[in-house]
């Protein structure tokens, strides 16, 4: 009987604390929401948007058939140097396809590791080596993308340029053509095209 009484007392106490907790949650939440919203920029991370662009490139660039050893070969987006993306890139390309090819992400430290690669993002950490990288990959159908100053002018194919907190594209068309890559007009139209080359 004593046990039963305890159990009942318990139940009442618990019911009370549950409603107290409800109240507490609500009261905690409102000021917190306001404070957080006021104190923080609502802008999206730069590299989440850049990851989305890299994905878009796989949709708007045509690679020659020889760039894929089989129809099952994945289209590989490689990151060369320090990785600024975290999981953004993996999250973006998950379950996506480009012209029937699954998408994969790889990370490289050395140029020799760049084997089966279709889009190569050259990290800011490797900015000083842009010239060497472009030379080393000459003749291979790899879309070379970067965001360091003068990247497109030094032979990179697509450069992200941040202007007024927005990302613009600068495309070196001749470099892309030399690598047998066809860039869709959907990508070219809103971009700044340098080095258009002979048609």
């Amino acid at each position: 009987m004593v046990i039963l009484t305890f159990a009942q007392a318990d139940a009442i106490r618990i019911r009370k604390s549950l409603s107290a907790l409800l109240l507490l949650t609500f009261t905690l939440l409102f000021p917190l929401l306001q404070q957080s919203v006021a104190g923080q920029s609502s802008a999206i991370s730069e590299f989440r948007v850049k990851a989305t662009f890299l994905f878009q490139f796989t949709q708007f660039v045509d690679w020659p058939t020889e760039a894929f050893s089989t129809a099952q070969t994945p289209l590989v987006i490689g990151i060369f140097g320090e990785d600024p993306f975290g999981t953004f890139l993996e999250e973006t390309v998950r379950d996506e396809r480009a012209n029937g090819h699954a998408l994969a992400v790889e990370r490289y430290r050395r140029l020799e590791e760049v084997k089966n690669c279709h889009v190569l993002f050259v990290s800011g950490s490797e900015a000083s080596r842009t010239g060497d990288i472009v030379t080393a990959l000459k003749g291979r159908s790899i879309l070379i993308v970067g965001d360091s100053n003068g990247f497109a002018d030094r032979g990179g194919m697509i450069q992200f340029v941040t202007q007024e907190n927005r990302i613009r594209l600068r495309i070196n068309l001749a470099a892309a053509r030399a690598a047998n890559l066809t860039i869709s007009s959907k990508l070219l139209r809103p971009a700044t095209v340098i080095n258009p080359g002979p048609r």
Partner: protein
Amino acid sequence: MDASERDLLAAVAISNSGLFVRLCRRLKVVASCSRIAAALTLFLVHPGLVVLPLTLSAQIQATPALKTLSVEELMNIEVTSVSKRPERLFETASAIQVITREDIRRSGAASIPEALRLASNLEVAQVDAHAWAISARGFNNTTSNKLLVLMDGRTLYTPLYAGVFWDVQDTLLEDVDRIEVISGPSATVWGANAVNGVINIITKKAKDTQGGLLSGGGGTELRGFGGARYGGGVGPDVRYRIYGKYFDRDSSVLATGQDARDSWHSGQIGFRGEWNASQADVVTLQGDLYDGAVHQLTADPIGLGGGNLMSRWEHAFSDSSDLKLQFYYDRTNRRIPASIAEGLDTYDVDLQHRFPLGQRHDMVWGVAYRLIEDDIVNPPTLAFLPPHVSRQWFSAFAQDEVAVVKDRLHVTFGTKIEHNDYTGFEFQPTARLVWKMSTQQSLWGAVSRAVRTPSRIDRELFAPRSPPFILLGSPDFHAEDVLAYELGYRGQLQQRLSLSIATFYNHYDNVRSTERTNPLLPFPVFLANRVKGESHGAELAAEYRPLESWRLRAAYSPLKLHFARKPGSTDPNPGASESHDPNHQFSLRSLLDLAAHLEFDNALRYVSRIDNQSLPAYAELDSRLGWRPSTALEISILGQNLLHRRHAEFGTLPGRREIERSASLRFVWSF
């Protein structure tokens, strides 16, 4: 103690029945009406909260939304470079392994415990047809109590023994997104019981499971199974899925080769819905109902049943700041003829908030509350007294990740403070450090404290039901604690070779012991905290990809545990009933893509002897041949435990069950 221990295990090897009927009947019980009303209020009121933030930050968009934008629109998005990027696995300062949906598919696993065999930082042993013993870093038992297991944020926890009933934890495996397995203490963020590890089962979002799916098959052990799912939408912002599944499994065998007559079957239905209330707000509502029965050798079948309902509101302030509020209710019934019958209600509220502080700090804090109502019908042989208990837990945690050198050296400090009805306040701090040597290599270390708080078995279990007792409940049983030191390395040594090493040294204090009331007599006994122990070991895992179409994974996990009596203990075998662990585990997996859309996968595992069960070492092989003419259709033949006609993985003679070699044919069709 052996007799009562076995009884106790029998009690706890509990398992269910007429789910709908019972659930409804339970729900009608007058006493619980007010709590049901409270639960309903929470469900109804808290999604209502989203009205508030709807207009606050329209700019925030999830990745999938970004992908649908045109190049021009993408160029007009305002970006920020200060927010923290999400961490990749290799940058985390803990021994984490992730089992992906693809890993599960290629393993042929048809249940969550089978899928957990893919994590080499766990010990996974099949006890009989339905029961499993699963733990990390030692202390394995059918009633393992040092692992925290969650499914979509819902704790799969029984207050009976502070562990998991694995036979009722299920979902459509095709809808599992990933299973994160962390070995080592993670109590700071995750909470009590995360003493030796955390298993976090995450199902896909409804928007990622649109369309239909049918799966089915059958074989010698998994005699028949079928699953169906349909995912759809209402308007542009609401996505849902509903699913159902059923399986029938054959029994295990006794060591003599006789049928153990523990065949079982279970069915489950469930749903998940998401409402993208704004670009920054997602409201999720999900739930499951299950019902099953496990046959027994000498008594009527065990009845299993239950259900859960969860609502969650997530709000993103920015890429590096978000808030999550969730509530769930879980009901579970287990009726074991000739043993106990249990009905358990769990109510849980969680709030978590993440935000950056300045340039260097990434803060997470949260509060949580849980209430359980556990009701037991005791048999004459043993009893949980009082039969009905209400228990509550309050907890709060805060953690700060400091970028000492941004993207190079990060230090994390945090603590959890928890209050429980048994032992009052418990304090669980951690300090972690990760040094990212390069894009491909990182070194990490951690020192943490975690506790395992008492459960009903520790304090309230008596045998028999009325005096004279041979096992006495122990009102003084307090928390077990661990101080853990970890050091690990992760590296991608070459494009095709990656390696991870985690090492640990754990010091345990106040471990459960069995004490005699009178040192001269074997009975009665009671449980106390008079054992201390230490463990050390490593988890080595490597992945090598010799060809684009061929992946090899190898893992080796050595483990050593040692227990000692504390002053005043009369326990004749300190730690012997707590830990049943092999000292060595080895696995090798090969995933090969062949021509003509064929996949040929093999998994070999070796588990060394479990000394205190006199259980011999064993090696077993699973093989799968899959044909996947398109991503929509998969047909596979699976052979499990092929090396021996039957083998044992856990338990002592003469009751020990053995698992038979099996084969099955399966299909999955998506449309």
